[in-house]
């Protein structure tokens, strides 16, 4: 018995390691297979391109959320930041500022809003949950004040701006390109630079990180700013896609982003997880949304199915 065990152990260990690394990816593949069997049109190239485009917004927000969650925090304000920065960007465009410049400024403004979160959390020593819950309400309120509850339209017909959300680059939807480029940059930052290590270190053991000379407050402020900036970037894509800024844009996007991060295997208690997982997590959610639509599942049941998928995915992840 014992000798057999000794032999099999490394194997199961390796298996475990593989499923651990591939867990979310495996989930995605299973999902894709099921959906395409039930409705083959899912696999049509145009649908895949659409899917990628739809996923981009959630993925971008979830990338920022990954950093935040890795530090053991949470950012409930991303949806509100998206809405506010989108409204401000559209406002600038309407007032005649060059669209790409407006997007740039919008992203910076988003970053500043994130920075406000970061400062409340570090200087104000507030729990991230409650700090970003409060700023969420504030940013939402400000968006409504700024827009008067009406969408902002008349954004002109700048070609580059339209491309930004609706165009194709080398046959790939521009938002998907943006998402992939952002992913690559963030992947390198997270896994190949000291900043990334610090992110993990803060989430893994904040006190020890502080003692090790990591400027914890600075890193956190940067990470919440990054999260805000990415939300604003997602907002710019949305603005271009809708050719308008919606006052209620991004409602409950924070929950989708958090779900993507968690489905990707990142632990909500911080210090553990990977941004590649988040990409997969976002694709899982996107595939679910797209697939359930294609299958004609009523939106009521869609909610039930989505919740169950999240439960199962996380449970399987825990079991390993």
């Amino acid at each position, binding site marked *: 018995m014992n000798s057999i065990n000794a032999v099999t152990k490394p194997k199961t260990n390796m298996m475990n390691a593989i499923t651990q690394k591939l867990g979310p990816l495996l989930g995605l593949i299973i999902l894709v297979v099921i959906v395409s069997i039930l409705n083959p049109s899912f696999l049509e190239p145009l649908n895949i391109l659409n899917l990628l485009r739809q996923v981009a917004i959630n993925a971008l927000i979830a990338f920022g959320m990954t950093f935040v969650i890795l530090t053991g925090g949470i950012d409930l304000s991303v949806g509100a930041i998206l809405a506010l920065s989108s409204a401000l960007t559209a406002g600038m465009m309407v007032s005649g500022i060059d669209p790409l410049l407006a997007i740039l400024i919008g992203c910076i403004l988003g970053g500043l809003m994130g920075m406000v979160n970061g400062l409340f959390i570090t200087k104000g020593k507030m729990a991230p949950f409650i700090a970003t819950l409060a700023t969420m309400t504030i940013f939402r309120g400000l968006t409504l004040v700024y827009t008067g509850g009406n969408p902002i339209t008349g954004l002109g017909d700048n070609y580059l701006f339209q491309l930004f959300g609706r165009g194709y680059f080398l046959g790939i939807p521009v938002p998907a390109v943006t998402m992939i480029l952002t992913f690559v940059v963030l992947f390198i930052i997270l896994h190949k*630079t000291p900043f990334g290590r610090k992110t993990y270190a803060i989430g893994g053991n904040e006190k020890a990180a502080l003692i090790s000379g990591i400027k914890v407050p600075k890193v956190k402020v940067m990470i919440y700013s990054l999260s805000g900036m990415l939300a604003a970037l997602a907002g710019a894509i949305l603005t271009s896609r809708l050719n308008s800024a919606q006052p209620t844009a991004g409602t409950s996007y924070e929950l989708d982003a958090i779900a993507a991060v968690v489905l990707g295997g990142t632990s909500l208690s911080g210090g553990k997880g990977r941004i590649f997982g988040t990409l997969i997590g976002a694709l899982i959610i996107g595939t679910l949304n797209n697939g359930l639509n294609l299958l004609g599942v009523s939106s009521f049941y869609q909610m039930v199915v989505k919740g169950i998928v999240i439960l199962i995915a996380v449970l399987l992840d825990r079991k390993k």
Partner: protein
Amino acid sequence: MRITMENIYKAFGTNQVLTGVNFELVDGEVHALMGENGAGKSTMMNVLTGLHARDKGTITIDGKETYFKNPKEAEQSGITFIHQELNIWPDMTVLENLFIGKELKNSFGLLKVTEMKALAKKQFDRLAVSIPLDKEAGNCSVGEQQMIEIAKALMTEAKVIIMDEPTAALTEREISKLFDVISSLKKAGVSIVYISHRMEEIFSICDRITVMRDGKTVDTKAIPETNFDEVVRKMVGRELTDRFPNRNPNLGETVLQVKGLTKKGQFEDVNFSVRAGEIVGVSGLMGAGRTEIMRAIFGLDGFDHGEIWLEGEKVTIKTPDQAVKAGIGFITEDRKDEGLILDFSIRDNMVLPTLYSFAPKGIINEKSEIDFVNMLIKRLTVKTESPDIAVGKLSGGNQQKVVIAKWVGIGPKLLILDEPTRGVDVGAKREIYDLMNELTDRGVAIIMVSSELPEVLGMSDRILVVHEGKINGELLKENATQEKIMTMATGGQ
């Protein structure tokens, strides 16, 4: 590097911790810093390295007044601190742990992983540890984690290394390796501040000793000019005749019997028994699996097969509450993480396992609760102004007493003590030993897991030696010696 700290004051809120402490460190010396729990040793070093700002006083380094703003600055100036509390990231690999906050990067700002690996390998070889670099630190035993911390400190090429109880979690083998490293560092002109509660060590490796009491320096002496008793007297403020009390065990019936306990990869075919009134010491090397065995008995982690018998009856213990109901108490090796709720009061901590006995009608009778807590505080001589003080504010020794009190309160049949005196000063240690004696006199059976050989030899009636998850031998108090235990612990007979 020459460091002088003069007349340093430091208070946390109303708690005046340092009250005019003086300390001096010269090149190439190993300087012991001793004192009771809470004397302010760690705090003084935290002030030196910039983790805490001083309230008053001067710090001179190589003739120049220097105040670091944070530990990183101190490290860059050549002062490295191995903290008492392990600074480990359990979910990160050993390699990542070694380089946190000081990763090597190339001109693009990217990590240089190969270089870091090579460097880590070199340090590990020097310390003769063989922990895989890609193992998750959380899967390392406390001892291994301690070695990671030491390696991390050595890597900084420091001129001064402060070691705050570096050996608390180590067994003899690792300790002797560490001592080799310390002497070679000393030869290279590195000076070391060595804080420890283990007396033997101080006299074998240190050059000078500074004793602190109540936030003040009592004395600084060269090691040859002082002795064990003098140091203890200065620390505790009174004479301490013997380190261990006399034991006159009066053994009763067998309380616990473990038969063939096995858990794959952790321990195998563990058989032993403990009688009422007996102290069974459990010794072994770091990571031998002693803690795992105890946790299994207490129902914390399951086991694959084997039987547990209590007072002649076979019992099933799957969860700690079943163990508690059966009259077993467990003082874990990690007091802060598993033993106490640091933010909660002494009272709240002490009554946790006995809550229901104060609430016969569902509502807690606070008066009987307070009486009970006061009785325990008195009986275990916990030093505190009030039972409503948060345990986190007590000194290490007193915290340990609160944990023990918690279990004394259930009127246990069997107490499992895992490293009961880790990080506890000599005075408090003696009090804990007295307490163990008192408990066994009243018929409690005790299992004491300990890495401190003198303690095992001094307190046990019988000694089990664990080697790689198996009980490799059993020694009676009369014929046990350090050498015999070490041989068995390393696999010999």
